[in-house]
């Protein structure tokens, strides 16, 4: 009877700036420009907080495919399969 519920849960991503919510939805993975080098977070990644440097944020979205955002540094938090990216400025590209 022990069904691993996590298999059915997909990763949820939010990209927030103080002006608006840039992106929210289910994703397969997200590539972030971490301060110590770019890294990708996939489903069920361990809880992490990392600062981000200037660079490209690549979202592999479930619904709308790959979205690339140019960001100006920020913070990312992953917890309970939910990723929140806080950025101050986004240049859509």
């Amino acid at each position, binding site marked *: 009877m022990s069904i691993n519920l996590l298999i059915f849960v997909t990763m949820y991503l939010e990209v*927030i*700036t*103080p*002006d*608006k*919510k840039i992106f929210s939805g289910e994703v397969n993975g997200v590539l972030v420009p*971490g*301060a*110590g080098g770019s*890294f990708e977070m996939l489903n069920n990644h*361990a*809880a*992490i*907080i*990392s*600062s981000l440097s200037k660079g490209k944020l690549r979202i592999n979205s479930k619904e709308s495919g790959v979205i690339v955002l140019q960001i100006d*540094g920020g*913070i990312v*938090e992953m*917890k309970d399969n939910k990723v*929140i990216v*806080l950025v*101050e*400025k986004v240049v859509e590209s």
Partner: protein
Amino acid sequence: MPSLKEVKNRINSVTSTQQITKAMKMVAAAKLRRAQERILLMRPYAKKLSEILQNVSATLSSEGENPYGEIKEIKKVLIVVITSDRGLCGAFNSSVIKSVQSLISEKYSKQLKDGQIELLCIGAKGFDYFKKKNFFVISQYKDIFQKLSFDAVRQAAEFAMNNFLNGNYDVVEIVYNEFKNVATQIVKVQQFLPILPQAGTTHQNVYTEYIFEPSKEEILSELIPKSLKIEFYKAVLESNASEHGARMTAMDKATDNAKELLRQLRLSYNRTRQDAITKEILEIVGGANALTQQQW
């Protein structure tokens, strides 16, 4: 007693004034809604940021050096004055200006004598006023409200923060209107830098074990300026919402006043008209009487 024509002219002018104030009230209401939406949009970001900040600083054993919290001898002061660009909003701007002046004369009179006070004005009203009073005013950021965005506000906040770090300013204060509700604004004087230690912050007990990249200290040093900028942005947004709230209330009162004025004017118009009619009838009757008497 004013003539009919005069009263009529006044009625016309008051009516058109009332139309203007009514329209301004509607516009202010729409803008207020947008301003409130902005605050709502900013909230998730601010909330998450402070959550992370709490999480990081709670798991960090030593507080570490925080360059933004360093208390220095107060030589040079920067006061950020947040007003509006336009008038017709009641005591909104004058109360900010008044409280800036009392802040200067009570707390920083020595610095004023030495000419060590600089003002950063956001919003044209405060800028014009203090420019006229020969204060040293930084004009670079006064037009933020024309196209309000976090990016523009961020630059102003960074200006204050960088100059604080460089030692150009030893203390930075923000004076702005806090939005309580549509009718009430509270003028708030807030010390922006150095950061005051927060008394009685609520500590959650549940902390997730995070991986920290690159290190807690580095994340903390990035988080602090970010949350400061948000603090600054919040003050600007609050002031923006307050402005429209204040204008809405002021225009609502003006519309009411115009209504009352119109009522009185109409009364006086009708009285004057009635008087004129009575007089005319009397004249006709008198004339007719005179004629009939002559015939006899």
